[in-house]
C-alpha cells in the first residue's frame, strides 16, 4: 500500500506504540482487500456497533482501555448501537438477575469507556443513528468508518455515503487513524451491481421479507432492484426511508449486503440508472410464490411450537418517528375492530432515545400508551441474547431479530392481528 509521510510516521511510532498498532490494523485490513491507499474519513460523526457491556466482551474492553490509557482518541465523536437493558421492558425475576448480575454486568463500565472515547452524548445509543432526531446523518459522498450492518447499508444505499461493511473495533480504528483503506464499496467499481432483482409481486412486498429473500440470494453482492419504485414511489419520503431501513437491515443480516440500488429511487440509481449494472449480472425474479417460499423456509425453534406468544418486539432496526405514528393509528383501528382496549400480547416498540423524546411531544404518545404498547430504546437482539429466551415465545416482524435469536417472524399484518386480537398461535 502506498502511504503518505504522515501515515508512514504514525506506523513507525511517531505517535506512540498504540497509535502505531492502530495504523497497522487499518493498513493490514486494507491490504487484505487489495487497497492501494488510505483515504481520509470525511463524515462529521462515526458510529460504533458495540454498545453492550457483555461480560464475554472483556477482550474488547481491554483493547478499548489500551486506547484510553495511551490517550489515543478520534477527532470524531460517535453514536453507538442501542443499550441492551431498559427497566421498562417486561422481564421476570430470573431474567432480571441474569441480565444485571451476569450478562451485562460490565454495562456501566463500558459506557464510561465510550464517554471517554468520544460518545456524542449520553443517549446516543441507537442502530438508526441516521434519523434526523439523532443527528448522525452523513452527506452524500462522505467517507465513513462505521460498523452496524443496518446503518452501513442505509448510509451507502439511501444516503449515498461510502462505507465498507466494517467490523466492530475496525470502526473505531479507522476513526482514530483518520483514514480508511480504499476498497470495495468506497470505489466506483465496487458500487456496481452484479445482480438484477426484478420485483413482480401483485402487492407491495413486505420490506423485511423482500430484504431477506434478496440477502439470502445475493449474499455480499450489490443488487440493482427493479420494479420496487412502483410500490414506493420515486421520492425518498419518510415512508420510503422507513421501508428501505427495514428492507436493508434484512438484506444485511440474512445475507451480507452493504449496498443496494433501487431503480428510480435511491440517489445513485436515480442519477446513473442501469449504468450501475455490471455486464453479466445475474437475474433474480421475485414474485408472490418466491416470497412465500422464503417465508415458509424459516425454521420455528421455539421449544413449544404451538405456544402462545408472550412478547412482541417491533423495531429492529429502531423505528422512525413516522413508523411510531403510523403504527399507533393501525393499532387503534385494529383494537377497535376487535373490541379490545389494549394489546393482548405484551408489545414493545423500540426507537432511538431522541426519536422517543420527539414522539413524546406529539399527540400520538398518549394514544399509543393507552393501547398498552411500551416504547423503549432497548436493543431487542441483546435482550434476547440469553438461554431463557429459548423457552420464551417472542414474535417479531424483524427478520434481523429472527436471524439472530429464537424470535418467530410474522408479517406486519400478522403481528397486528396477533397483538390486537390474539387467538393465533
Amino acid at each position, binding site marked *: 500500500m502506498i502511504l503518505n509521510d504522515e501515515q508512514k510516521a504514525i506506523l513507525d511510532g511517531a505517535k506512540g506504540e498504540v497509535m502505531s498498532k492502530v495504523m497497522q490494523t487499518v493498513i493490514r485490513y486494507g491490504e487484505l482487500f487489495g487497497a492501494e491507499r488510505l483515504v481520509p474519513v470525511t463524515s462529521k460523526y462515526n458510529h460504533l456497533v458495540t454498545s453492550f457491556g457483555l461480560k*464475554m466482551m472483556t*477482550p474488547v474492553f481491554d483493547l478499548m482501555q489500551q486506547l484510553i490509557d495511551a490517550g489515543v482518541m478520534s477527532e470524531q465523536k460517535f453514536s453507538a448501537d442501542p443499550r441492551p437493558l431498559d427497566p421498562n421492558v417486561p422481564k421476570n425475576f430470573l431474567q432480571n438477575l441474569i441480565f444485571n448480575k451476569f450478562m451485562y454486568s460490565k454495562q456501566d463500565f463500558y459506557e464510561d469507556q465510550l464517554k471517554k472515547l468520544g460518545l456524542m452524548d449520553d443517549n446516543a445509543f441507537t442502530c438508526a443513528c441516521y434519523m434526523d432526531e439523532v443527528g448522525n446523518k452523513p452527506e452524500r459522498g462522505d467517507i465513513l468508518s462505521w460498523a452496524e450492518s443496518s446503518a452501513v447499508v442505509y448510509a451507502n444505499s439511501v444516503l449515498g455515503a461510502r462505507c465498507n461493511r466494517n*467490523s*466492530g473495533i475496525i470502526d473505531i480504528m479507522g476513526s482514530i487513524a483518520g483514514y480508511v483503506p480504499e476498497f470495495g464499496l468506497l470505489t466506483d467499481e465496487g458500487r456496481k451491481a452484479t445482480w438484477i432483482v426484478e420485483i413482480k409481486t401483485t402487492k407491495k412486498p413486505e420490506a423485511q421479507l423482500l430484504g431477506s429473500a434478496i440477502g439470502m440470494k445475493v*449474499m455480499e453482492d450489490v443488487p440493482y432492484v427493479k420494479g420496487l419504485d412502483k410500490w414506493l414511489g420515486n421520492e425518498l419520503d419518510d415512508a420510503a426511508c422507513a421501508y428501505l431501513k427495514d428492507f436493508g437491515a434484512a438484506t444485511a443480516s440474512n445475507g451480507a449486503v452493504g449496498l443496494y440500488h433501487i431503480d428510480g429511487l435511491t440517489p445513485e440509481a436515480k442519477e446513473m440508472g442501469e449504468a450501475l449494472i455490471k455486464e453479466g449480472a445475474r437475474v433474480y425474479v421475485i414474485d408472490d410464490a418466491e416470497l412465500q417460499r422464503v417465508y415458509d423456509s424459516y425454521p420455528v425453534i421455539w421449544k413449544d411450537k404451538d405456544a402462545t406468544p408472550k412478547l412482541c418486539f417491533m423495531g429492529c432496526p429502531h423505528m422512525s418517528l413516522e413508523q411510531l405514528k403510523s403504527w399507533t393509528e393501525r393499532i387503534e383501528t385494529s383494537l377497535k375492530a376487535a373490541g379490545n382496549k389494549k394489546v393482548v400480547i405484551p408489545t414493545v416498540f423500540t426507537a432511538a432515545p431522541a426519536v422517543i423524546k420527539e414522539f413524546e411531544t406529539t399527540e400520538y404518545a398518549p394514544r399509543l400508551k393507552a393501547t398498552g404498547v411500551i416504547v423503549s430504546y432497548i436493543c431487542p437482539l441483546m435482550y434476547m441474547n440469553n438461554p431463557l429466551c429459548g423457552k420464551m415465545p417472542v414474535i417479531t416482524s424483524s427478520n434481523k431479530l429472527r436471524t*439472530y435469536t429464537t424470535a418467530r417472524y410474522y408479517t406486519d399484518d400478522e403481528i397486528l392481528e396477533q397483538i390486537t386480537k390474539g387467538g393465533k398461535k
Partner: protein
Amino acid sequence: MKVFQGRVVAPGNITAEAVVSHGGLNTLASFQKALQFGDKTATCGDQNNPDLYGKQMAGKALCLPQTIGSTTGGLVLYCACAMGRQPACMLFSQPIDSLAGAGVILADVWLEGASMPVIDSLGAEFLDYVKDGMSITVKQDGSVEVG
C-alpha cells in the same frame, strides 16, 4: 487425499478435523451463546445454518465460503481468539470477507499468541470435496491437504 492451494491470510501449520458450512457462517449467531455462557467447545448456535448448528467449532478446521451477518462478526471472532475458543484454522473457499478479515487482523495485531491459521480463495471445489470429520493439514505456504 487431495491438495488445494489458497492465499495465506494468517500463516501457520496445523492438522485438525473438518467441520463444513456450505452456506455463509453467521459469526455472531454461531458464537454468541458459546462465548457468553462458558461453552469451551464453541458449539454453533446458528439456527439458520443446518450444516453447523449444534456442532463443535473450537479446535476444528472450519471450512466455509465466507462469513455473513452482523458487523459485530470481527470482534466476536477476536473475542473467540482471546478466550481460546477459536477454530484450529479457518479455510475459506472464497476470498475472505471484510468481517472475518477484520477479526483475523485484530487478533494478529492486538493479541499475543492467539494463533489461528487462515487460508482463503481455496475455490468452490474445496467445499464440494471436504466433508465433516475429514483430516485437514494446513501448511505455511497456504496449501491445504484434505483426507
